[in-house]
């Protein structure tokens, strides 16, 4: 069975600084997707960034980038130039292939301080 582990229940960062959120996963699959979702108080999960396991290049979306280490089964999220609007819960998620359900970690609560 696949599992996703986020070892940091809470993190804080000063506005404009950089922060890295950790995620590790366990799977025997070779074809899978990894995601970081953001959940603000509105409850709606919003996709931040996506990584296909077969791609060696780390995904980047503006201020958000990942460090994908397939052999180590690690998938960390780096947020550069943190903004107050980045304050939210962040969930790492795993999906086997391109179908089927997402498996989520327990989340990291990120607070960006002015």
């Amino acid at each position: 069975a696949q599992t996703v582990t986020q070892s940091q229940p809470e993190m804080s960062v000063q506005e404009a600084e950089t922060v890295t959120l950790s995620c590790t996963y366990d799977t025997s699959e070779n074809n899978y997707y990894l995601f970081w979702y953001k959940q603000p108080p509105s409850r709606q999960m919003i996709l931040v960034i996506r990584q296909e396991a077969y791609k060696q290049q780390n995904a980047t979306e503006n201020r958000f980038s990942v460090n994908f280490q397939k052999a180590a089964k690690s998938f960390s999220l780096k947020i550069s130039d943190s903004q107050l609007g980045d304050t939210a819960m962040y969930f790492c998620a795993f999906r086997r292939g391109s179908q089927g359900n997402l498996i989520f970690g327990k989340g990291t609560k990120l607070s960006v301080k002015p």
Partner: protein
Amino acid sequence: GAGVSQTPSNKVTEKGKYVELRCDPISGHTALYWYRQSLGQGPEFLIYFQGTGAADDSGLPNDRFFAVRPEGSVSTLKIQRTERGDSAVYLCASSQGLAGVQTGELFFGEGSRLTVL
């Protein structure tokens, strides 16, 4: 619609009552998912539909929980004889499924918060 819509936004009920939660996915999305999120936890998978049929219902906790998607669009999650432990936010998501471009991404609604007194 433009996004995944869930109703009601909030539902308060008494222990033992029957509850229905509705999800209207993004138009054209063939795959639909239900998750349950307890306070301070990540979402836990309940059931996944591909079209009208349940492709995977392994996450349903017991036979009090049931979900349908009769026309392959709107889905209803049904909870019988509710218990206090059922209190949680129930999230619905949809994705392109087999017919569209596979991005792997799920699009979520804002959830239905269920409180069982």
